[in-house]
């Protein structure tokens, strides 16, 4: 099982008295792109937060390189090589584009990604490097958020709804860069509501419904009927 | 809908209220069973229960964390001294006047310091207290910075015999704390109390539910100033001597009051009472230590804030579900 980069086993997660995840299990192999789909409130973002170490969960519910990392702290999880592109981008508004990227790189992990490489991936960011991040368009901000996560040179990149609120052409543009990112040998977990996009990008797909995994399998083997049954519970 | 009504009382609050009533009667009779020194101590305890209850209303319920309530203790005291010494007003009549004067002053003060958000509000209240202290020190008619004493004629006008004077002040002190506690219970049981509790628990939520948070905070600030000034007036009437440094002392009228409330349980009516009892017990045993005593008190308050943020009464109330004052609202089904 050496190729199992990430393994989630029987993960429960709570917000106070509310339980958001019930015994979720999944795994990601090295170099693999995995998509997590599901309706609003299915627990997709919660799952990513648990992997990123931002939620208090059982330690051995999340294994990374076989090491229990559940419950964080988040900054140590980043140092281990897990980076998150958070939902809604969450750029630092008082920092410029380049400063946002540099914050991502502050952890100091060695690897292929640096300012130069990120600007090669997203050339339009270089022209705007000194602009305040809120002055960018939504799509450009999403590129900064991805670049910021890449700057920490992760082996696992978690992307939370990168298509949210963006025009279809912009979404296609951003997803077109995913192969180039995966080519650097890192694995991705992509949370998406856009099922078509998710199935196109990922090899494996997990579907969440009300905090439980209702379906998983290889993207190309899943039929539309199976997915809508798992998605809506009908 | 009509089958449901709101009940405030619980078994423990019936027991609690009965104890409070009996204790009040016993304490009112204290001049017949207590020593003179004990009466003075009791009056001091009442003052601290009342001051802490008012601060609790301000900080614990309305979210207005003031570290400058000494402004109103001192203001009330100075108004009483000024009226009694310069205008010939009877000192007992001057107590309510001091309250009204402070409420009047609190209106523009609140308008100013409410512009400061959150933490900075706290320091703003301190600046106000400093301004009052410096102004008192500039008041040459009351001997400015060195302070002054009430003349014998004023003291004698309270009552001609020393014993009667002490009894009178004692009873007023008791009446003050009873009225203040009663008023707070009444306020918290009214619809404003519901609003205040909502503000305490979630200010944003309260705001979005149509509660006029600013107006309620404003009203609480002014009302607390009114009560605090009357307490200050009586405290210094008993002391007979006043100076800017004692009347506007941050240690005596704010640090102690905050520690009492935090240790007893902030945001609960019982908290200041329990806190005051603990405070005086500690003081009787540790008073010889001087500065160390305050240091210990500070450490205890920080420890309580970190590990038992609801205070000692909070621990008790959570464990046993007790409440002394009938405040909680429960919905009960009417029997048909």
């Amino acid at each position, binding site marked *: 099982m050496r190729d199992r980069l990430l393994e989630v086993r029987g993960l429960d997660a709570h917000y106070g008295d509310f339980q958001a995840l019930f015994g979720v299990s999944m795994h990601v192999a090295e170099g693999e792109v995995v998509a997590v789909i599901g309706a609003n409130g299915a627990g997709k973002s919660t799952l990513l937060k648990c992997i*990123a170490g*931002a939620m208090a969960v059982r330690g051995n519910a999340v294994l990374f390189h076989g090491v229990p990392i559940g419950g964080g*702290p*988040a*900054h140590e999880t*980043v*140092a281990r090589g897990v980076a998150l592109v*958070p939902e809604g981008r*969450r750029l*630092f*508004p*008082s*920092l410029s584009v380049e*400063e946002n990227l*540099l*914050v*991502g790189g*502050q*952890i100091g992990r060695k690897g292929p990604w640096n300012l130069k490489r990120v600007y090669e991936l997203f050339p339009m960011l270089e022209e705007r490097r000194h602009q305040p991040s809120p002055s960018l368009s939504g799509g450009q901000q999403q590129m900064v958020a991805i670049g910021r*996560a890449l700057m*920490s040179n992760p082996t696992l990149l978690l992307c939370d709804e990168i298509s949210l609120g963006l025009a279809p052409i912009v979404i296609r543009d951003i997803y077109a860069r995913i192969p180039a990112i995966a080519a650097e040998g890192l694995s991705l977990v992509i949370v998406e509501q856009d099922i078509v996009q998710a199935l196109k990008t990922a090899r494996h797909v997990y579907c969440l419904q009300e905090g439980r995994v209702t379906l998983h399998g290889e993207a190309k083997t899943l039929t539309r009927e199976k997915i809508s049954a798992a998605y809506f519970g009908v | 809908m009509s089958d449901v009504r709101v009940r405030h009382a619980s078994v423990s609050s019936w027991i609690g209220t009965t104890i409070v009533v009996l204790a009040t009667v016993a304490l009112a009779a204290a001049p017949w069973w207590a020593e003179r020194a004990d009466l003075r101590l009791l009056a001091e305890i009442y003052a601290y229960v009342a001051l802490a209850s008012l601060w609790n209303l301000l*900080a614990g319920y309305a*979210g207005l*964390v003031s*570290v400058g309530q000494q402004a109103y203790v001192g203001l009330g005291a100075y108004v009483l001294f000024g009226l009694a010494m310069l205008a010939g007003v009877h000192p007992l009549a001057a107590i309510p006047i001091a309250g009204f004067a402070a409420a009047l002053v609190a209106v523009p003060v609140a308008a*100013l310091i409410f*512009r*400061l958000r*959150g*933490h900075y509000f*706290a*320091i*703003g209240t*301190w*600046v106000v207290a*400093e*301004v009052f202290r*410096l*102004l008192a020190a*500039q008041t040459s008619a009351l001997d400015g910075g060195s302070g002054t004493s009430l003349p014998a004629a004023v003291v004698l006008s309270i009552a001609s015999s020393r014993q009667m004077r002490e009894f009178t002040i004692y009873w007023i002190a008791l009446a003050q704390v009873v009225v203040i506690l009663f008023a707070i219970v009444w306020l918290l049981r009214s619809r404003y109390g519901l609003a205040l509790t909502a503000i305490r628990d979630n200010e944003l939520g309260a705001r979005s539910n149509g509660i006029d948070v600013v107006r309620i905070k404003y009203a609480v600030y002014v009302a607390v100033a009114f009560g605090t000034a009357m307490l200050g007036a009586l405290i210094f009437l008993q002391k007979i001597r006043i100076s800017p440094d004692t009347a506007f002392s*941050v*240690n005596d009228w704010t*640090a102690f009051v*905050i*520690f009492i409330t*935090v240790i007893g349980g*902030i945001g609960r009516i019982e908290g200041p009472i329990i806190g005051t009892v603990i405070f005086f017990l500690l003081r009787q045993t540790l008073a010889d230590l*001087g*500065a*160390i005593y*305050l*240091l210990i*008190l*500070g*450490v205890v*308050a*920080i420890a309580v*804030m*970190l590990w038992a*943020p609801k205070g000692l009464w909070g621990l008790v109330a959570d464990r046993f579900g007790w409440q002394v004052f009938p405040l909680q609202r429960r919905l009960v089904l009417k029997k048909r």
Partner: protein
Amino acid sequence: MEWLNTILQGILLGGLYAMFAAGLSLIFGVMRLVNIAHGDLIVLAAYVALVTVQALGINPLLSLVIVVPVMALIGYVLQRALLNRTLGDDLLPPLLVTFGLSVIIQNGLLELFTADSVKLNAGAVEIESIAVGGGLAIGVLPLIQFALAVAVIAGLQWLFYRTAIGRAFRATSDDPSSAQLMGLNNSHVFGLAMALSLAIVAIVGVLLAVRSNFDPAIGPARLIFGFEAVIIGGLGSMWGTLAGGIILGVAQAIGAQLDPGWNLLAGHIAFLVVLALRPQGLFPKVQG
């Protein structure tokens, strides 16, 4: 000419107030914490300087080499061991804990050093002055103090906008949970911010000890001066804070010139007037 001198002295004093304010607004900016014990920590630094000078027999200004790292260390430990636990949505815990800290420091110092006021002697530099013509003279010490204030503010400005740690401060200030997800350890970042704040406090404490008599009880007034400088200058603006300190210093100097009793009162009134007319401060930071 007397008035010109008064204003000049006020400006120089304002530098000191700006330094009271700089440490206060630094930690407010990074972690939204108002440290009520700030003034008492300044006094603590003055006593650390006193002990250092007495133990080593060095010039007080030289004692900075020891006082600054000692205070910075205290700041880091204080933040990580105590203050980080108080941070959150509720305003009450940090306020009450730093208020308790203020009382603890004051009474601890009182117990150790008594209420007697003391002063550090920096030697000849204290009485030297430079004639600037027209019968005006500027004391060398106030000048050093003002120059240090400008240097501290400029240094903070540089640190915040030109260094990695400054970037981390701003990122954490913007969005602490997101910063944590990007690999910044908030507890550590906050610890560093408090260490930096207390390093400034150390400089201020030594200057205060050389400038005038001090005793354990003078802390709260320093907190209030610093706070007033912050509010007059406008939140979040470091050069504004310097301006706020200067306005406060000049107001106090003018007040004292009119009547010695009006020294502090004039400063408070200047603050209240600004609060009444321009609650956002004179030079608020423009949000970009």
